């Protein structure tokens, strides 16, 4: 029987961690799969994990690790991914959109995220959505701060480039 406090944590954290999983994977089905796998890894250790300052940090680290592992296994294999689960916004895609200035189109952003290499996507999401520091991001990704800086910088540059020239499909097919 699962620990009741673990069930409670799953219920409470599910929505926010599902959002993170979605940004990390770019696909709703993969996101749920990733999230459940991470929970399943945490469950046997919940007594210990629950005493951490932030169980969410453990789950984030686990999700990034699992995601990287999956990507390595399936590297180079094209995968079909679903479109963003709503009608794309009616605003036409601007050429040369500036991420620092605009709220951007969901569909474009999703495709741009999908096009990022795995580590760059994770770095951008952890730094700019989870609002983690460089050190926290490095801890989550299991790498050095320098690698985080590089991945974030490159990820943002690639996002800007992708948003400037809207793609019609996932350009790398590595999601």
């Amino acid at each position, binding site marked *: 029987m*699962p620990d009741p406090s673990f069930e409670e944590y799953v219920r409470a954290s599910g929505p926010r961690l599902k959002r993170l999983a979605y940004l990390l994977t770019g696909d709703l089905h993969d996101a749920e799969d990733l999230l459940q796998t991470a929970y399943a*890894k945490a469950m046997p250790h919940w007594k210990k994990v629950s005493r951490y300052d932030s169980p969410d940090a453990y789950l984030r680290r686990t999700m990034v690790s699992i995601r990287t592992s999956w990507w390595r296994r399936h590297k180079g294999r094209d995968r079909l991914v679903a479109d*963003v689960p709503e009608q794309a916004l009616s605003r036409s895609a601007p050429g040369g959109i500036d*991420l620092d200035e605009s709220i*951007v189109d969901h569909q474009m952003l999703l495709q741009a995220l999908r096009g990022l290499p795995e580590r760059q996507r994770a770095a951008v999401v952890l730094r700019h*959505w989870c609002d983690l520091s460089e050190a926290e991001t490095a801890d989550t990704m299991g790498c050095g701060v320098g*690698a985080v800086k*590089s991945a974030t910088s490159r990820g943002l540059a690639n996002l800007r480039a992708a948003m400037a020239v809207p793609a019609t499909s996932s350009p790398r097919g590595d999601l």
Partner: protein
Amino acid sequence: MNTDSPDPLFRSLDRLAQQADTDAVPDRMADISRRARQTRQRKLAAGGAGIAVLAAIAAGALIVPDRGTDGTAPDPAGSPSQTPSKAVREDADLSGPLRLRASAVQSGEQAISVRAEVLGTGHSWSSGTEEIGEFGARAVTFAVDGGTPEALFGGSELGAVDCRRGSSTGASQESYGTPSDNAGQSLQVSGYGEHTVKVVASVCGPDGPAELTETLTVKTSRVDYETADELNEDLDGDGEPESIAIDVPAGSAGDPDAAIAVARLSVGDAAPQAVFLPGLGEPVIEGVADLNGDGSDEVVVRKLGGANGDTFSVLNLRAEIPYLVTVTGMGEALILPNSTGVQDAGSADSQVTGLRTREDGSVALSTWFGGDRPTVQDWRISDDQMKPGQNKPAACYPEDPNDSTSLDGCGPR
């Protein structure tokens, strides 16, 4: 999450992330429990059969001294000669080289037991938590064929294990010093035949330091391999192609957790030369280049995955015995291997992110030491060392840290 952030990218990402709410899952506990159960069953299956066999023939008994009155670990008064032990002898047959792994396994809420495995056979031994108590395993050594014990994790001597609560190597209810998901460290024994392995686990038991001993013999024989990657190319310029195959144990192709592969070179009708590629990962032939300028090519094998990310192995196939150097990090000269055939020079602070063989015979490896850009550096094999050339900043650098081909057209010429 920081919903008050003025970062426009945060707002864009947050709006996108909210799309995940459209896929609400009312109750995921059933699926989570099932996945956790499957994971546990897989782990048990990996060692269960061996444990049963070993337990059935176990000889001797664990003798434990009196327990402290408060139930906590007493001071480490016991010496190794006074500590309990038990001996087990087991015979096993193994196709392939003998590989041993020691790992720490979280067996209960606060207990870490130690497991010793003969990889590839299902034969394993677990200390069990009843012998470990709540204070966990501290060290495991393997002594093969009467050789020097080799520590695979933790300290190497029981005398160094301090079981007082809160000590750096000993008991702490908050920290055991070994991660619960410890994948273990492995040891490979070269040569086929009968091997005797003495396993010694030094632990902080419920009543202080203890030493658990197992002895087993394993007969090894050649294994069936299948080819994961191969290349047919004229490496020595004689006009006839040589065949290089990267073989993995049958059935493990594509398994990133496969612990070993074999690089095999076939020249004409001569018996193939082979060298083991240790460590985790899916091996692929990355490229061929004459790295040391001796007129014959070396082969670079890339292995995906592993604790330090991808690794690169350089095979010199002209040597009488093909040698191997595994590169997991950069920054200093790498000593080419000794008679064991393997030298691993990892660096936790750097990450190899790309590789390109170059026309002048060197190999360009891009490495991230931190900072905004990776460093691209030339490497050459000279004498018995793989030496870095002069640092040359890259004209461009890998877009994808995991994409080895992205150096094409980039880097120093």
